């Protein structure tokens, strides 16, 4: 049987078009959220690697690249979050209850980019106690 890493687009249909770049696969899922993706990845025995958060220019939100390892191939799922709660805090779905490995990076993104992950606690701050989130890697607030 062909290894799963060689039939990524057929196996994972989350909407959107898969793109292969130098041995890793990238997708902007149009019909799935981070939790749907996490469930599918874990069901196939994938390992969560990390999330790369990038603040978009002109208050355009935060881009979140979720990196997973499936049979030694990196799969990256890109989501852009624009929803805000009060005081410029963005909100995103947490996957911590599905993958324990996402715990620290979600907390780090919460502190560095002021992203609130729904369904989990990110307090008290574990990197820099006593300061408001979003002060480390995010541009000064508008």
């Amino acid at each position, binding site marked *: 049987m062909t290894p799963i890493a060689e039939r990524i687009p057929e196996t994972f249909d989350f909407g959107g078009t898969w793109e292969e770049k130098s041995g890793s696969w*990238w997708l902007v899922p149009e019909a799935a959220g981070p939790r749907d993706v996490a469930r599918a990845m874990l069901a196939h025995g994938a390992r969560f690697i990390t999330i790369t958060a990038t603040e978009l220019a002109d208050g355009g939100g935060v881009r979140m690249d979720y990196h997973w390892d499936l049979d*030694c191939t990196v799969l990256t799922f890109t989501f852009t979050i624009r929803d805000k709660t009060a005081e410029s805090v963005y909100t995103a779905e947490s996957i911590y209850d599905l993958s324990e490995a996402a715990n*620290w990076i979600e907390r780090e993104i919460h502190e560095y980019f002021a992203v609130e992950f729904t369904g989990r606690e990110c307090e008290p701050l574990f990197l820099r106690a006593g300061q408001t989130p979003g002060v480390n890697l995010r541009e000064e607030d508008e």
Partner: protein
Amino acid sequence: MKYNVPMGPYHPALEEPYRLDLVCERETVKDAHLRIGFNFRGIERLAESRNYIQVIALMERVCGICSNIHTLSICQAAERLTGIEPPPRANYIRVVMAELERLHSHVLWAGIAGKVMGFKTMFMTCFALREKIMDILEAISGNRVNYAMNRVGGVNRDIEDPAAILRMVEEIEREMTRVVIPVFTTNRSALSRCEGVGVLTHERAVACGVVGPTARASGAGQDLRRDAPYAAYAEMDFNVPVESGGDVKARLVVRALEIVESCRILRQALAKLPSGPIHPEDEDVEFPSGSAVSRVEAPRGEVLYCISWEEDNENPTRVHVRTPTYANMPAIRWMVTGARLADTPLIQASIDPCYSCTDR
């Protein structure tokens, strides 16, 4: 009665600052909470204000032990983005540097493990050996800590006399196999401190997503050098040691066997070093818009770099690094739970933690 024992951020058992809050009942650890961030330097943010040459120099300073791995990872990511292929000789030199760095890191770790066990003679022996490995690194790169070897498209310095380097490696290998490895794998005093201590089960290791020797000591056998080869690893013949015990002894044995495998890779890479250039003649590097990821098997496990660039920009828009200790450290909570309080320094040392990497 339960009581809390704070360990760190500054503590004789810790080489670098982090905090472990231990909840104990008598002498047994019932739970633990970790805190990091004492070394935060904002390197990822700084990278957004540096050009690609400066970014390489900056990322080399993420870690003082596996500095070469960081430049290798970011150069590979940049090469994937720009489509630049390093020449074969450069790929072999990258393997030599990466394996020397692995040797250096594992020997340094063995020394610290010896010290934490109360085996000071082993600490001195390992650090003397480490000096010799640093001599080799200096002979190749001119530097003993930050080697400045990698560049986008290849390496900065050639190995002029591979035979001389090979002789130095063989001398190190002899001392390793004669002294260090037998002590750590057969000495009863050393083993009595490690056997059955700080167990991380396979299931928990998978759930935590741990990497490198920590994962391989819990039966999770991934090694990017074999499973997703980069540089010239596809042309090397080597084994990936895997143990199933999940305890400190298993982590120790995995690293000891990896030292032997590293020497084996070094012998092959130096003997087969192809001729030719070490970087492309055309020095221009132009970044298109886009993102790329690169992974490398560092001494402590998988390192991932994700970089993003906008065309015509001098600086990257984002550089994110996920270091192995960042993935391994949360598992310390499960390793120390149920252990004796006195064993916690050795257990936390057994993942070979690097807080400099973790905090970036």
